[in-house]
């Protein structure tokens, strides 16, 4: 009992020392930390959104829209394939709920050929980690003269995955433009994206920027149509469509269906000011193909208006004064400086593949976060003082040993939290305090056991020895059961609740170490030093 192997003492002391060293940066303000030399640990505990303020936004991608888009593409592919093989067809139709496109072949002798051609449209998708593929994205079947192409589950999952991936990239570019520190954007489950932005104050603007699809189109205005009349009668001439501006009241425009150039051809967009009027505008630049198409379209339509359409809303409809051949231009539309800035970010970041809907939103203002830190700190400190005082009252010197172990325990929690980059939340602070209670329990168990052994007539050293070893089983069993509940909590929870589970898990593991090993070494050192005839317990 009294003698520990040297390596054990060194190891335990090293862990304790490391705990204090890596916990220490949390005591220093971040600004002061910047000025310190590099060899000093700098990592601090990340504060959760509930303490720091910020936005937690859970988005769901519109699966129906993805399916519709996809079926539209399949229809185009079918048309193309049959035309190029000169096969006559009728009734080319799509069925969104069945996720399928069907077509009837005119001549019975063409059916087999068409079937062979259309089967080529199906491509293998869903490569798994082993390099094999899990199936084709389309299932092609025929019955009589009818051929049906059905989107498979694997194919759909693949589509959703790549749409989510593309959305995450787009959102990242948009959020980065917001200039906040360390946003986190990640996929959740099948069709969701979780966006967490700490320290953001204007959440409404953030949501506007993320949620906007950002589909930009340049279309010609139909010069023969009277927009005001058509807006009332709803009789839109074939080949045209009726769109509105974002003004109040909205101004109707009748535009040609055909897209002159779309945002896909955009390579850059920057906010700026009009050189003549000085109003905020967005400057844009097309790639080579886009510049060519835009040049040709403007050349053919000098003197006519065209419309700049964002997400099916007309931003502006200027008249083409001269052909625009350089591939650059500007969008004006009574923007404020901020609106011009946001629009340029939107255009630069590219369009989202499908609409995103917020299904969960939790935002905390910075002032509430600061208040929560204050109240959490205060409660935790008072709680710790009460526990420390009580332990001393109950066990005297042995209580002091337990209290020192407690200090080590708290330092270890902060050290591990800082090192693994875990997040401290308000419930997490409560978790630390709860750990203090649990950690003390281990020492209570040990000390009570030692008292029992003394009453049974054992010598101080023998009493301490069997006190520790006998209490150990109870300590392990009881902590494992708590851990089971806490791990379930981690698995279930998100955000603050998960933060609670993380601190509790680290704390329980640290408490088993400190209560059993650290106090034991302290008690042993004390016994060796004082050689007491009886224990002060």
């Amino acid at each position, binding site marked *: 009992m009294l003698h520990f192997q040297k390596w054990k003492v060194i190891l335990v002391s090293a862990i304790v020392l490391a705990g204090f060293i890596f916990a220490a940066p949390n005591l220093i303000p971040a600004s002061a930390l910047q000025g310190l030399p590099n060899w000093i640990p700098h990592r601090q505990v990340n504060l959760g959104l509930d303490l720091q303020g910020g936005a937690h936004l859970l988005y769901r991608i519109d699966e129906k829209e993805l399916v519709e888009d996809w079926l539209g593409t399949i229809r185009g592919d079918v048309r193309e394939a049959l035309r190029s093989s000169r096969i006559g067809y009728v009734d080319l139709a799509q069925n969104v709920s069945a996720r399928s496109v069907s077509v009837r072949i005119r001549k019975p002798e063409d059916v087999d050929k068409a079937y062979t051609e259309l089967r080529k449209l199906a491509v293998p998708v869903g490569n798994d980690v082993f390099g094999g593929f899990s199936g084709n994205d389309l299932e092609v079947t025929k019955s009589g003269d009818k051929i049906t192409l059905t989107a498979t589950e694997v194919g759909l999952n693949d589509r959703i995955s790549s749409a989510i991936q593309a959305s995450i990239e787009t959102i990242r570019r948009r959020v980065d433009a917001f200039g906040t520190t360390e946003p986190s954007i990640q996929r959740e489950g099948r069709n969701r994206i979780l966006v967490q932005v700490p320290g953001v104050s204007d959440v409404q603007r953030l949501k506007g920027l993320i949620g906007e699809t950002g589909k930009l189109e340049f279309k010609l205005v139909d010069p023969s149509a009277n927009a005001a009349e058509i807006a009332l009668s709803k009789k839109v001439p074939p080949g045209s469509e009726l769109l509105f501006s974002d003004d109040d009241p909205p101004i109707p425009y009748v535009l040609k269906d055909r897209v002159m150039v779309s945002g896909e051809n955009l390579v850059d967009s920057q906010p700026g000011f009009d050189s003549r009027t000085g109003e905020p505008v967005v400057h844009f630049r097309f790639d080579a193909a886009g510049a060519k198409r835009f040049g040709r379209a403007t050349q053919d339509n000098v003197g006519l208006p065209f419309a700049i359409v964002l997400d099916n809303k007309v931003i502006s409809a200027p008249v083409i004064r001269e052909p625009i051949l350089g591939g650059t231009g500007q969008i004006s539309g009574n923007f404020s400086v901020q609106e011009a800035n946001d629009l340029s970010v939107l255009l630069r970041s590219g369009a989202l593949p499908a609409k995103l809907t917020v299904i969960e939103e939790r935002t905390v203002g910075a002032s509430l976060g600061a208040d*929560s830190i204050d109240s959490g700190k205060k409660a935790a400190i008072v709680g710790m003082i009460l*526990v420390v005082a009580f332990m001393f009252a109950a066990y005297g010197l042995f209580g002091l040993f337990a209290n020192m172990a407690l200090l080590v325990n708290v330092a270890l929690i902060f050290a591990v939290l800082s090192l693994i980059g875990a997040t401290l939340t308000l419930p997490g602070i409560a978790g630390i*305090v*709860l750990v203090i*209670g649990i950690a003390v329990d281990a020492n209570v168990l040990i000390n009570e056991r030692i008292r029992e052994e003394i009453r049974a007539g054992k010598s101080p050293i023998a009493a301490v020895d069997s006190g520790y070893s006998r209490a150990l089983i109870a300590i392990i*069993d009881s902590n494992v059961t708590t851990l089971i*509940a806490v791990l379930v909590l981690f698995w279930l*929870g998100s955000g603050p609740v998960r933060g609670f589970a993380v601190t509790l898990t680290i704390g329980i593991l640290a408490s088993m170490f400190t209560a059993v090993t650290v106090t034991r070494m302290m008690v042993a050192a004390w016994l060796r030093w004082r050689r007491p005839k009886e224990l002060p317990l």
Partner: protein
Amino acid sequence: MFRGITFIPPDTKIDFVGQRAITWFVSAFLTIVPLVLVATVGLNLGIDFQGGTLIEVKTKENPANLADIRGKITGLGLGEVQIQEFGAPDEVLIRIASQPTEEEQQASIAKVKGALGDSVEYRRTEIVGPTISSELIAGGTLAVVVAMIGIMIYVWFRFEWQFAVAAIASLVHDVTATIGLYALLQLEFNVSSIAAILTIIGYSLNDKVVIFDRIRENLRKYKRLPLVDLLDRSINEMLSRAVLTHVTTFLAMLPFLFFGGEAIYGFAVAMCFGIVVGAYSSIFVASPMQLILGVQREAFSGSPSAAKDKSEAAARA
């Protein structure tokens, strides 16, 4: 040298299990009344489980003019709206019932912000859509069940099945009693309440396992002692530890009730209550259950010294 105060004398001989006629009644009361409360009064479900919108604002005037805010918001046609003071006289919590679609839910926030304008500071906004709320209900229930099963398996593995059953029975008791408290005080029941319940499960079990451990030890030691006396003896031996542990944990949590702020108040109330209920059920539910289930002494056969050697070997390992 200061030895510390002995709060609980070492040789108590309290007849805990002997009083089981009374304590069974109390335990049954603590289990059934909450269920009745939940069925009649109901839980104050938060937006986590019900869906909806919650906006916490701080008003510029102190105290807040609740009537004015209510007037501005009820005209918006958002369905059921609750407006109440929250923590401080100038802090107001606005709760709006779930809207039919997620888009309308987003619009509801914009409407409220439009109506209140810059007259208030928006401290917190939470929107939980219908998909998420039903997932959270399922997840929360599943978590409690999985935790219980996991614990039961562990206790069964480490002790005997009787202990596992007793542990689960007393945990059910603790959980229903805690849920009853939520219904009684009409505290908001949300995801952090599930966290509180799971923590209470873990913490309360911690305590039961310590007593089980002593019962097991005594079953080996006192082969002829009647089970009732053996259980009482085990509880009395662990009484000092139980009281001290619960007092320290309770002392640690207590400041959160007073200084922790509104955000964590409900959690702190549940935890403080759970600590007390857990202490009660360890002594008055988990232990006397052994009488009903009939612990088999043969399961712990072997000479006491052999058992001791075995446990010490385990301790060293």
